[in-house]
């Protein structure tokens, strides 16, 4: 009922109401809206994707990931090189100052890495993301060497996202928590004021040393947290926003074609898949490959993705999102929609009369769960759906209580690599519902191989095995939606982590 009322109100907002002029560039302030508050605005304290919006423009990292090409480019480090599989040396850029005037040099890098390695600091996912850093050495004022415990081909992803460089004097004098409220970096914008969870105002750093990205051209940015999308739609229609970042494709569709409004879609690295308890013991129909194949063949993924997610969203054919590095989309068998084959496989497995199964999902995924229920009913599978809040679902999943689950995975720049997505689902842990020794070995080797060709080869083996055995059903990738005013020139990034310093006023 509430959803119906909400939809009616959105309809009322979108029909027959006069449109106003957009917030123009006269005050040189980019008005941005997001739906969720971030816990921290620096990337070291949090791994949250919500914090990335601020972290990207307040801080510089040693290397920068280009939003147009996903290439790594020199940033605070003007160059870097791998001395061996575990040692990387950075040549730092000279003449850069932090927002507070402190000069940048090797001491800041060594100090920041020292904090990352001290597990008492309690940074989010600290062990997971920084636990492999073994040693940091200052070679000279402009050269730093970092040694890892194990080879880590995805280390550059971390360097370009979570490892912002903090000023050593300022941070040691005030404690690292100072960056939660009074961040000081070398980024293209500095924080003017912060009303936690509500409004953040930033202004351009006039002394910004442009390197991997150009100096900012917009003077000020105001980011407001507006939790209700309907309210954001009203703000868009009233011309009070230049950029809205939290719309779903469904919400944004209603704004398409509206004068003064531009709706753009871009790739996102998050993906969803159907997990099945292939390794479960006892009377477990999902241990039978033919049952899993029947389920896989019975779900029309392109149709479901276009209808429920977005026509722009990718329907997945292998266990990765095409927006990720090392995602291979030419895997055979592709396991496409084939209802007759599904029925035959189920009958061959001894379930011609049908089968009762239970699907768990986080509450917001109910429409997807119901679509899957509908598809499976066509082959006689009676699917009971159990939706619950995310923490409850996660707890049950970690505890091995899932027979079937819809799993969403991947966020942050680190998820640009498939090792993140394959992560904990094929490594022999309690979240591995497959427990295939080959997959455990291949993914472990791929996580540490510094040879891109070898990694590709290993991942091809992984994806092929997953599809052959129908261990999971890769479902769909997410689409990032950007609603902008026509006053704004917004370059759609190749990943769902926009860099606001790249936004320009339209000419």
């Amino acid at each position, binding site marked *: 009922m509430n959803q119906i009322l909400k939809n009616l109100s959105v309809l009322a907002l979108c029909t027959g109401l006069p449109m106003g002029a957009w917030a123009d560039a006269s005050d040189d302030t980019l008005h941005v809206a997001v739906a969720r508050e971030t816990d921290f605005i620096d990337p070291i304290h949090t791994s949250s994707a919500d914090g990335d919006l601020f972290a990207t423009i307040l801080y510089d990292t040693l290397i920068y990931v280009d939003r147009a090409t996903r290439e790594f480019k020199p940033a605070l480090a003007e160059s870097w090189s791998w001395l061996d599989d575990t040692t990387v040396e950075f040549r730092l850029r000279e003449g850069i100052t932090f927002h507070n005037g402190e000069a940048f040099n090797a001491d800041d890098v060594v100090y920041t890495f020292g904090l990352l390695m001290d597990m008492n600091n309690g940074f989010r996912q600290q*062990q997971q993301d920084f636990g492999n850093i073994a040693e940091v050495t200052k070679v000279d004022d402009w050269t730093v060497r970092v040694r890892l415990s194990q080879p880590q081909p995805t280390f550059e992803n971390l360097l370009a996202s979570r490892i912002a460089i903090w000023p050593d004097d300022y941070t040691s004098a005030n404690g690292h928590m100072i960056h939660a409220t009074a961040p000081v970096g070398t980024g293209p914008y500095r924080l003017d004021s912060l009303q936690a969870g509500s409004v953040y105002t930033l202004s351009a750093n006039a002394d910004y040393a442009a390197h991997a990205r150009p100096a900012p051209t917009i003077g000020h940015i105001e980011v407001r947290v507006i939790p209700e999308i309907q309210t954001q739609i009203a*703000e868009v229609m009233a011309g009070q926003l230049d950029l809205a970042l939290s719309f779903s494709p469904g919400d944004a569709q209603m704004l398409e074609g509206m004068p003064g409004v531009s709706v753009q879609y871009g790739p996102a690295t998050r993906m969803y898949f159907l997990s099945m308890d292939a390794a479960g013991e006892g009377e477990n129909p999902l241990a039978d490959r033919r049952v899993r194949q029947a389920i896989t063949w019975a779900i029309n993924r392109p149709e479901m993705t276009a209808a429920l997610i977005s026509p722009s969203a990718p329907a997945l054919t292998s266990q990765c999102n095409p927006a990720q590095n090392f995602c291979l989309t030419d895997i055979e068998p592709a396991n496409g929609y084939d209802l007759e084959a599904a029925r035959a496989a189920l009958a061959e497995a001894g379930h011609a009369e049908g089968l009762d199964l239970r699907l768990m999902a986080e509450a917001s995924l109910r429409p997807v769960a119901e679509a899957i229920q509908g598809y499976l009913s066509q082959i006689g599978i009676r699917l009971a759906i159990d939706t619950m809040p995310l923490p*409850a679902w996660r707890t049950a999943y970690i505890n091995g209580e899932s027979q079937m689950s819809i799993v969403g995975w991947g966020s942050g720049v680190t998820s640009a690599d498939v090792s993140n997505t394959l992560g904990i689902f094929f490594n022999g842990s309690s979240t591995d519902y497959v427990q295939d020794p080959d997959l455990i070995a291949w993914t472990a080797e791929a996580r540490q191989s510094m040879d891109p060709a070898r990694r590709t080869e290993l991942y091809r083996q992984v994806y092929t095995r997953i599809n052959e055995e129908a261990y999971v059903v890769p479902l769909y990738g997410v689409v990032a939606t950007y609603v902008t005013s026509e006053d704004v020139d917004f370059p759609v990034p190749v990943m769902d982590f926009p860099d606001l310093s790249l936004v320009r006023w339209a000419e």
Partner: protein
Amino acid sequence: MLIYLRDKLALSVLVLLTVSLIGFALLRLSGDLAASLAGENASLEEIAALRHSLGLDRSLIVQYGAWLADALRGDLGASFFTHEPVSRLFLDRIGVTATMAGLALVVALALSLPLGVIAALRPNTWIDRAISALALSGQAMPGFWLGLMLISFFGVTLRWLPISGSSTPAHFVLPVAVLALGAVPALTRLMRSGMLDVLEQDYIRTARSKGLPVTLIMLRHAMRNALLPVVSLSAVQLGALLGGSVIVETVFAIEGIGLLTYRSIQRNDFPVVQAMLVFVSVCYVALTLLADLLNAWLDPRLREA
């Protein structure tokens, strides 16, 4: 009266303890907080370490005891997400919420008192029915829907008022209107029924027979008596407005304790949600206690019951 006060206070404390215990248990049972906090990509070891460091691996009753002991000392803990003390999060936001609730109650009373009186003076006429219909509509309309409709008309179409935020007094007009319209129906109906009761009393007939002006009878004799239950209800309504601002603050993006609660529920920020639960309970219990005492003071039979 003192015995009555003692019993009521004891009952209030028991209610608060019960609410806090049930709330605590429900929040703890809603899922593994450590798994939520550790982040999606966290390893099982990291989740276990976090669970231990937060004391979430202790028994429920031990956790509740520790929380209660801290709460009685005024320490409500810190947000799991931002690490800020809960008391500071509340103090930073309570002003906005209290201002909105107070203004909404004033507006609601300003509307419902005259409407109730007019309806009582013209019982069973079209005016009475129109006011009843208005009151019913107000009660039936969900706050978020009304909020969006007001935004659509006054914010988008007419551009008279800002749509969201809380930086100027104008930002409060629409949210206060939504909150007030939610409180008007009950207050109007109570005022109407109170007035109808009072108007049938002998002393009103006597006043009329003495030839006193109708306005004087209404203001001096009828309204004063009919207002007493409305005052009691207003106290309870204020509690509802303070606790019920979650939806309005969310729709209008107003940084009060309602929006804080909404976000904290979304991300399982247990200390904040628990504190909000206790805050709303204290408001209700205190205001209900006040209303009970007021009624007992006015009606000695209640003290003896």
